[in-house]
């Protein structure tokens, strides 16, 4: 965690000798500084999630009257909602694969060839303002008389065909998470010495051999971290299927949860869906943190 050498800590404590009389020990003072953050996390993150788990074990909304504990909700999630789980995982994995296929060349060019990197970074913040505006803007583009209508007409593409389709949802999901992929792969590639590629080429490797034998293994950690990060974000997708998808895409877990909980007031089932989605997201995050070299400093 901290890289402060031990001897510094000792000198530090001597300097603090006077103040130590007032506050018991550095350890206690440290916990006091940490307390507000811990209290907020416990009150508004850990308790609600624990509560959600408890609710997920009760029938319908019986928790708030006389709680009937049962595992029926989970049984229903894994039978009736299996297609929803499959759809969520399918959309998240395909969009993450798209990110990887298109993001790798982007990251490579960005790191090796481009001097106006700051500009590219600035432009890349547009998707990060949120999937809502992204889906919203794409909707306008896909409308039959959208702003790019003449261009698509010239190219002979019937763009309105893609409104409310899997393609539009996947595209908007991929665009939203594209910066995460580029960021992770870029971080890995910037640690790869360009000399290695040159050496491979001098020794007679073809471009694709340089890629499969040198670049790909060396940037593996970035690829895995980026893929898992995109996958994790896309598991919780909501706005893109809602605005751009057909009922098939709108079966994703987040939207189901909203419908069950806030429209039909079946809290038990909504909570069970939520717990499942959370478990999937945490598993992905745990894996990605193991691969990304301490991006969060932990």
């Amino acid at each position, binding site marked *: *965690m*901290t*890289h*402060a050498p031990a001897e510094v800590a000792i000198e*530090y404590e001597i300097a603090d000798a006077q103040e130590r009389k007032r506050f018991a020990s*550095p*350890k206690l003072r440290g*916990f006091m*500084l*940490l307390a507000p*953050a*811990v209290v*907020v*996390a416990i*009150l*508004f*993150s*850990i308790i609600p999630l624990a*509560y959600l788990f408890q609710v997920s074990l009760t029938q319908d909304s019986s928790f*708030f009257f006389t709680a009937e504990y049962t595992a029926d909700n989970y049984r229903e999630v894994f039978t009736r909602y299996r297609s929803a789980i499959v759809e969520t995982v399918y959309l998240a994995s395909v969009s993450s694969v798209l990110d990887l296929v298109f993001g790798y*060349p*982007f990251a490579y*060019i960005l790191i090796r*060839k*481009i001097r106006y990197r*700051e500009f*590219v*970074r600035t*432009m890349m913040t*547009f998707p*990060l*303002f*949120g999937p*809502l505006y992204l889906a919203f*803007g794409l*909707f*306008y*583009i896909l409308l039959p008389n959208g702003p*790019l209508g003449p261009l698509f007409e010239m190219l002979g593409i019937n763009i309105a065909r893609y409104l409310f389709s899997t393609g539009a949802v996947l595209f908007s999901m991929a*665009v939203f998470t594209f*910066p995460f992929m580029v*960021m992770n792969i870029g971080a890995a590639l910037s640690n790869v010495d360009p000399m290695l590629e040159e050496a491979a*080429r001098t020794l007679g490797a073809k471009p694709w051999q340089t890629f499969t034998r040198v670049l790909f293994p060396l940037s593996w950690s970035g690829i895995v971290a980026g893929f898992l990060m995109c996958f*994790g974000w896309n598991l*919780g997708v*909501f*706005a893109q299927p809602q*605005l751009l998808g057909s009922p098939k895409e709108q079966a994703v877990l*987040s939207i189901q*949860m*909203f419908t069950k909980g*806030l429209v039909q007031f079946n809290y038990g089932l909504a909570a069970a869906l*939520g717990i499942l*989605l*959370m478990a999937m*997201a*945490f598993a992905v*995050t745990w894996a990605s943190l193991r691969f990304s070299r301490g*991006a*969060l400093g932990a």
Partner: protein
Amino acid sequence: MAVAAASAPRIENRSGGFSLRWLGNALAHGYVWAWLAIFALPFMATLAYSLRTPDGIWTLSAYQYVFGSFKENLLLSVQTTVITIVINLLISVPAAYAIVRYPLPGKSFILSALNLSLYTPAAVMGVSLVIAYAFLFRIPQTMTGLIAAYVVGTFPLMLVPVIVALRDLPMVFEEAARTLGATRMQTFWRVELPLLGPGISAGILLTFVIIFNEFLVTLFIAGPSTTTAALRVYNLTRTAGFQPSTAALATTMQLVSFVVVLLFFRFFGSRYLKGTYLI
């Protein structure tokens, strides 16, 4: 494809080397520019839609709604964002300081517990909070509830850049100040805090960008009197269809966010944003 083309030409086609290399570079740059266009395209389309009436006349009239009937939503967005940033600062800076500078047991466990909300999908957070607010805390549909949700969702984003900045900061400045007789508080306010400036402002930027545009958690927990501007955009697209006035609001939100990002990059660069949500 572009990667392959980008590599240097082999010796046998030296005569055609110049044009091949030029072609490879052009393809590489073209690829990046194509993606930049895709990033900006939804915004440009929204902007174009907001400026045009259904009859094809270009006008700014849709923007009268932004400061008319949407004014309250915008005000609420700005208000909640500012309050969230202030609370985030008050709880994250001490916590980051404790994590980096104090000998605490189980630090990585504490940090993971604090980051828990960052990894929870927004819809799950929304549904857990709506239940907890209604039946446990009894603060449904209030601004307090909204701000509490925003704080817990974003304070880790403030925490991480400050931790990074604090680790980059050598202890010598602090030690020098203390040796020269400054108290602990003086050292913090006059020496460390100014030096932590870029890290703290990175946290402020991240919080701003996310909270100002957050609609999903808000959708679950907000009531009719606590509809933020981003949620209003969502609600309007669900109920009123696609109106130029909605597009005008969405354009305004994105424009404000983009200007803030631009200003940040201009003053601080992107160094302290590495390893966080943005870049």
